[in-house]
């Protein structure tokens, strides 16, 4: 089974990289870009039947730092 984990900085945590991308889009002439948030996507090939709870544990222990990041698990 394949899963994709999306890791994003939580709301309220400053994302200077997203800000820099927003400025760069503006400099390229793209109007109306209100905000940009930059995150990570991690794709994993897991043994069939791996539980959502186990994947959640992977996120909590390593893939995301829940002090600053939230995560979302997507089955592919």
């Amino acid at each position: 089974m394949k899963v994709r984990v999306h890791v994003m900085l939580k709301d309220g945590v400053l994302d200077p990289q997203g800000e820099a991308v927003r400025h760069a889009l503006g400099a390229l002439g793209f109007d109306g870009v209100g905000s940009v948030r930059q995150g990570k996507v991690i794709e994993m090939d897991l043994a069939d039947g791996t539980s959502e709870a186990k994947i959640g544990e992977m996120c909590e222990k390593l893939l995301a730092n829940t002090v600053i990041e939230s995560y979302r698990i997507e089955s592919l």
Partner: protein
Amino acid sequence: MKAAVIVFPGSNCDRDLARAFERAGLQVAMVWHKDTALPDGIDIVGIPGGFSFGDYLRCGAIAANAPIVGAVKAHADRGGYVLGICNGFQVLTETGLLPGALLRNAGLKYICRTIGLRVEAGSVYTEGYGTGTDIALPIAHHDGNYFADPHTLDSLEAEDRVAFRYTDNPNGSARDIAGVLSSNRRVLGMMPHPERASETAHGNEDGARLFAHLTAALTTA
């Protein structure tokens, strides 16, 4: 008195830290990250600066799960001293031994220069300076922007656990925080590099007092 310096792949301040400990009079053992135990009789563990595991995933995240870290946590839980500098501070927040996290610098640039610090909270690390003293130490980091939720920041301040604050915030750190202590005041994480300012040849010896006082305090403890 004995210090252990943990070495990860990508650590690059490990020998500098060992030398600073040695010059202050500590015996030093270098400990590889794959070891599962600290040598006997270690009083303080140093987690050095650098780019452990290439800063993959997040700075310090992979190192925080290395085999030796279980022994470092057990040492801290027993009331042992731990000093994490720069990447070492990032490792300590990732392990949960210290609160908060280090984000990308607000200006997005890697910053390598000497900055001003005010010494605040009392601890074996800071008493050699005295509260309210201004010192200068080098920083060299891309991810030194200290973040914690407002409640955590309030409790760090209420418990007097901010060891150092920037006098002119270089990286966007919340409340100018450059270094924080654990609740028992024995674990210190700091972004500035005292080990890089501890000999005449460095052009700045403000860092030497940290190591000298630390050694004196451990010796009389």
